[in-house]
C-alpha cells in the first residue's frame, strides 16, 4: 500500500474534474431547456483543437480560449438551429457533430501542423498555474503548506472558474428569471409559451450558454492538462459529462458531485495501475474506468436513486395555433 498516495489522489481529482464540470454544467443548460445535448463531445474536441491551434499561433493562451469559445458556440448554434428551428432529431444532430468533429479536427491539425494530427507543444502558450502569495513561506508546514500550495493554490485559473461556476449556475437556474424560464421550457414549453415566454429564444440562449461553458472543457484539456492537441483527445469526456448530468439528476450540485466522483475514479485508476490490493488483488484499470457508467446505469434503473429527466427533453416545441 506504500504507492497509494491519498494526497496525490486528491490533487489529481481536483485537476481531472474541471473538464467534466464545464461540459456537464453547459449540458445542464441545454437539457434543462429541453434540448438533448449529445454533442458535448464534439464541442469539447473542436474547442480543444481551436484553443491549441490559436494559442500556438499567437503564443497567447487567452486568444486560444476565445477561439475555442467561438468554435464551440458556432457548433452549439448549429445544434440549436437543427433542434429548435428545424425541429429535427436532436440526438442525431449531436452524434453527427461528434463524428464530424472527430474527423475535421484531425484533418485540420494535419493540414496546418503535419504532425500526425497533433499540434506542436504549446510550451509558454499554456495557461500557467496560479501561485498564491506566501506559498513558499508555508511550504515547510506539513499539512497546511500542502493544502495551501497544492490544493487551494497551485491550480490553473480555469480550475477556480470551474468551482466558482457551481454557485453561479445554481443561482442562475434556481433564482434568476432566466432560470425559471429555462426550467419552464424544459418541463412544459406550452405553459411557458402561454405565459408569454418565447420558448425558441430561451432555448437558443440556453444553447449559447452551453456552447460557451463547453468550450472551457476543451481549452482546459489542451491549455492546462496536456499542452498540445492530440486526435480524439476528448476520449469520451463529453459522454462522461453527460453521464454525470444524468447521474446528478440534472441538478447543478449533484452533477458537480458526479463529476468529482468520476474525476476521483480517474485518479484512483492511475494510482491502482499495477498495485496489489488486499483481498481483491490487482484491479485492471479498464474495469475501474467502467465504474462511472455502471453506477449510472444502476441509478437509471432506479435501484439507488431515481433519475428524472426534464419532461420536454428531446421534443421539438411546436407552437399550438
Amino acid at each position, binding site marked *: 500500500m506504500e504507492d497509494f498516495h491519498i494526497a496525490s489522489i486528491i490533487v489529481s481529482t481536483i485537476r481531472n474534474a474541471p473538464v467534466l464540470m464545464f461540459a456537464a454544467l453547459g449540458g445542464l443548460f441545454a437539457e434543462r431547456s429541453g434540448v438533448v445535448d*449529445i454533442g458535448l463531445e464534439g464541442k469539447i474536441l473542436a474547442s480543444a483543437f481551436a484553443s491549441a491551434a490559436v494559442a500556438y499561433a499567437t503564443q497567447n493562451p487567452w486568444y486560444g480560449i476565445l477561439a475555442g469559445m467561438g468554435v464551440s458556440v458556432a457548433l452549439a448554434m*448549429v445544434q440549436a438551429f*437543427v433542434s429548435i428551428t*428545424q*425541429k*429535427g*432529431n*436532436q*440526438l*442525431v*444532430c449531436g*452524434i*453527427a*457533430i*461528434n*463524428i*464530424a*468533429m*472527430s*474527423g*475535421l479536427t*484531425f*484533418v485540420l491539425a*494535419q*493540414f496546418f501542423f503535419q504532425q500526425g*494530427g497533433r499540434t506542436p507543444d504549446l510550451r509558454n502558450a499554456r495557461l500557467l498555474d496560479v501561485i498564491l502569495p506566501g506559498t513558499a513561506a508555508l511550504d515547510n508546514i506539513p499539512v497546511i503548506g500542502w493544502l495551501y500550495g497544492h490544493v487551494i493554490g497551485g491550480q490553473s485559473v480555469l480550475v477556480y472558474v470551474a468551482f466558482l461556476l457551481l454557485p453561479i449556475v445554481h443561482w442562475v437556474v434556481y433564482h434568476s428569471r432566466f432560470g425559471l424560464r429555462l426550467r419552464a421550457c424544459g418541463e412544459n414549453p406550452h405553459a411557458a409559451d402561454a405565459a408569454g415566454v418565447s420558448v425558441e429564444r430561451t432555448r437558443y440562449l440556453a444553447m449559447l450558454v452551453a456552447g460557451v461553458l463547453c468550450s472551457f472543457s476543451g481549452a482546459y484539456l489542451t491549455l492546462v492538462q496536456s499542452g498540445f492537441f492530440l*486526435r480524439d483527445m476528448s476520449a*469520451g469526456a463529453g*459522454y*462522461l459529462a*453527460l*453521464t454525470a448530468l*444524468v447521474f446528478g439528476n440534472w441538478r447543478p450540485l449533484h452533477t458537480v458531485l458526479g463529476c468529482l466522483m468520476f474525476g476521483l475514479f480517474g485518479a484512483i485508476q492511475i494510482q491502482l495501475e499495477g498495485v496489489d490490493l488486499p483481498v481483491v488483488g490487482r484491479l*485492471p484499470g*479498464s*474495469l475501474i*474506468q*467502467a465504474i462511472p*457508467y*455502471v453506477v*449510472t*446505469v444502476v441509478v*437509471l*434503473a*432506479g435501484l439507488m436513486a431515481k*433519475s428524472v*429527466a426534464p419532461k420536454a427533453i428531446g421534443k421539438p416545441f411546436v407552437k399550438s395555433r
Partner: protein
Amino acid sequence: MKKTELPRWATAFVLPVLNLMSALLVAALVIHLLGESPSESLHILVDSAILDPEGLAYTLFYASTFIFAGLAVSIAMQAGLFNIGAEGQMYIGGLGLTWAVLALDTHLPGILMIPLAMIGAAVFGALWAFIPGYLQAKRGSHVVVTTIMFNFIAANVMNWLILKLIPEGQQNPASRVFADSAALPLLNKVLPVLGDAPLNISFILAIVALVVYGVVVWRSSWGYQLRATGLNAHAAHYAGVKISRTIIVTMLVSGALAGLGAVNSVMGSTHYLSLNFPAGAGFVGIAIALMGRQHPVGIFLSSVLFGALIQGGFDLSLEKPNIPQETFIFIQGLIILFCGAMENFYAPAILKLINVTRTTKEA
C-alpha cells in the same frame, strides 16, 4: 386544393438526394479549402470505389458490415427505440464469435464452425442489448442513455479481456489468428475479377437479412406489433400488444443483428479479434438507418454509399496527402447531419414548388 403533405416520391427520393448533395457540397468546399480539387477527388473516388471491379468488391465488403449495423438500428427504430449501442453490441458480438472460434476451430470443419461462430456473435450481441432493453421496458430508463453507457462499458471490458486473449510471446493487443476452418469463403474463388478483395459470403447473408427484415417488418404479425408500438405505444397497448415484451424482443433482435455485423470483418478479413475492430461501424449504422428511411432498399443503397466512401477515401488519401482518410469521418458526420437531423430541411420549399406548379396547371 393546396397540398399540405409531400407525395411519397418526394420524401423517398428527392429529399434524401437533396440532403446528400448538400452534405457533399459542404465536403467539396472543405476539400477546396484544403487546396485540392473537389471534382478531381470525386473522380478518383468513383474510379476506385465503383468502376474498378476489385475496388467495388472492397466497397461491397465494407457495405456488408454496414448493412447489419443499419438493420440493427432500423429494426429498433421501427419500434420507436433509438439504439445508439450497435457499436458496443457489435464489439461484444465479436467477443462471442472469438470465444466460439478459439475453443473449437481446431476440432470442427468450416461447415460447422462458421455457423457456430455466427450464433456466438448473435447471442452475445443480443445479450449486450438485452439489459438496456429490459431497463427500458420494465424500469423506464431511456434506452438512448443506457446504450451509450453500454458502449463505454463494452469498450472498457474489451480493453481488459483482450489482454487475456493475447497469445504468449505477442505484444499486439489481439487474439491468436484463427484456424482456416473459421475463415469465411471468399467470393473471388467464384469471380476471379474481384481480385484480392475480402468480399465473402457475409455479403450474401446481408442481402438475405435485408429481405427477411422487409418480410418480417411489413408482412408478419410480429412486425405489425413492432410498427404499432413505434407509431403509438398507447394505441398498440390498447389493441393488445404487450409493449414491454415487444421492446425487449426488438432489442434482442437488434443486438443480434449488430453482433452479426462483427462476422464480416473478423472472420472474413482479419481472422483475429483486435482492439476497436468495429471502428465506428455501429455509428455508421445510425446514419444508414436514417438515410435509408429504415427501408431495405434504402439501407442497401446507403450502406454501399458509405462503403464506397471508405474504399474510395482510402485510395484518395494515398494520392492526395491533404485529404487523409479522416476526411471521410468528417463527411460521414455531415451526411448524418443533413440526411438525419435536417431531413426535412428542403421539405417546405418542395411543397411550395409542387403547389405552385399545380395551380399554374389548373389555371
